[in-house]
């Protein structure tokens, strides 16, 4: 116990650094995947068959294969096969490659949630809009969008919380997020070795952050209740 107290500051400092990477990846993914998901949703709802077919195909591949493999391919494929290491070897390159993989992956999941949200708005409203002489664009932004946002908050919350934990997959391309930082003490790092508790301790970070997110998303949901 005494030993743990002695090691605690070192471990916390290291885990903090790791968690910063986790947070960075988390926010960058959300920032990228929110708009990209909407674009993909429009693609898959398009009446133009080749476009909707292609989008659905992409969504199928991205959702149907493990994110871990996608990340390995996105990071190593350019250098290994195309002989053009576009990402570079440093930490920033790894982060960029991880971000791209996560944004693509999550945008595909989000797109299906968006699609569900948009299609759950009764067709009658669109028809009413058309009768009033609104353009499709106006109908989407003034009638459908807000109702969609309200309806997708619960399923989105699910994905967002999953995303927090999924960021740990980025360690496969050696992005030093919090799990990597915790696991380093098992092998030996900064004079601490064979310690498994730092790895378990990372759970505290996830729990607290997800707790905060749950509260925030709950509030958002309550705020959006005015439609009822």
């Amino acid at each position: 116990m005494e030993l743990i107290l002695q090691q605690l500051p070192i471990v916390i400092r290291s885990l903090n650094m790791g968690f910063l990477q986790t947070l960075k990846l988390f926010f960058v993914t959300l920032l990228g995947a929110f708009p990209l998901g909407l674009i993909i949703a429009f693609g898959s709802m398009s009446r133009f068959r080749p476009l909707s077919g292609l989008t659905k195909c992409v969504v199928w591949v991205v959702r149907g294969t493990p994110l871990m493999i996608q990340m390995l391919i996105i990071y190593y494929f350019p250098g290994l096969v195309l002989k053009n290491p576009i990402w570079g070897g440093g930490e920033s390159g790894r982060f960029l490659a991880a971000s791209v993989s996560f944004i693509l992956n999550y945008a595909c999941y989000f797109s299906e949630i968006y699609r569900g949200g948009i299609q759950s708005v009764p067709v009658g409203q669109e028809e009413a809009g058309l009768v009033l002489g609104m353009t499709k664009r106006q109908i989407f932004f003034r009638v459908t969008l807000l109702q969609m946002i309200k309806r997708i908050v619960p399923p989105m919350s699910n994905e967002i919380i999953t995303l927090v934990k999924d960021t740990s997959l980025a360690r496969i391309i050696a992005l030093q997020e919090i799990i990597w930082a915790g696991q380093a003490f098992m092998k030996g790092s900064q004079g601490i070795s064979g310690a498994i508790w730092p790895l378990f301790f990372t759970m505290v970070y996830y729990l607290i952050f997800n707790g905060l997110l749950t509260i925030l998303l709950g509030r958002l949901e309550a705020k959006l209740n005015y439609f009822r």
Partner: protein
Amino acid sequence: MKKKMTALLMVSVMAASLMACGGKSADSSAAAPADSAVSAPASTAAPASEAASVPAASEAAEAESDLAYVQQKGKLVVGITDFEPMDYRGEDGDWIGFDADMAKAFGESLGVEVEFVEIDWDNKILELDGKTIDCVWNGMTLTDEVTSAMECSNPYFNNAQVVILPSDVAEDYESVEDLADLTFAVESGSAGEAVIADLEYDYIPVKAQSDALMEVAAGTSDAAVIDLLMAMAMTGEDTSYEDLTYTIELNSEEYGVGFRKGSDLAAVLDEYFAAAYEDGTMAEIAEEYGIDAEAALIEQ
């Protein structure tokens, strides 16, 4: 009918995308022979003296590959793991250690900056070939797998694979034969695994050497096989594993630095090692990290 159409469309899109990928690699492989085809007639048409210079030219092109590549970008990216006392973070968070300091000195001799990148050890060859790192310099045991996949420097450091046992039973095992009934934990893909597999003893591959130690500490395995260097640092008094000790040396092995296959940097490093060994720089750095230079360093 509609469904069939969609299915057909999806299949054709997939096929097209697959072919697009295939097309690219076919292009690049087709480009290479085309180039040589262009140069071949030129050399046959040229007088004999010029034809003789062709191999030299291709050699120059090869020499250009890695040393020039690194010097041109001004940076040597060194792939490492956190491995005291070879590469680890010092108080201020910078990478230090015997290997790290040697790498910095080598970078200086090339006139390039050295960047350390922590990698997943399983992916080291991928990282090298994908040019995300330029070398693996992390107390790497020169096994057949390593030397066949990388261009390796001369060995510079002695290590051994040792058996880890709980201290209270260690005395019962005096020879390799005594170990036959034990179940071992070894790092998957490590030199230790190769030794135990050769002996045909029971073993469980685990993710890391530290996991192997933990298996013995937890009693889930009877013994482990790990690097001597690591065993010295992690077992015995004042360590995390006070109840464990290292006993029999199963084999001795040597550390080397790995570069991309065919890289000219390995030869450059060999020259540097020879100079650094000669003038005592190597021994000096070794002593700094508590390494017995006399026993550990290999004459260059």
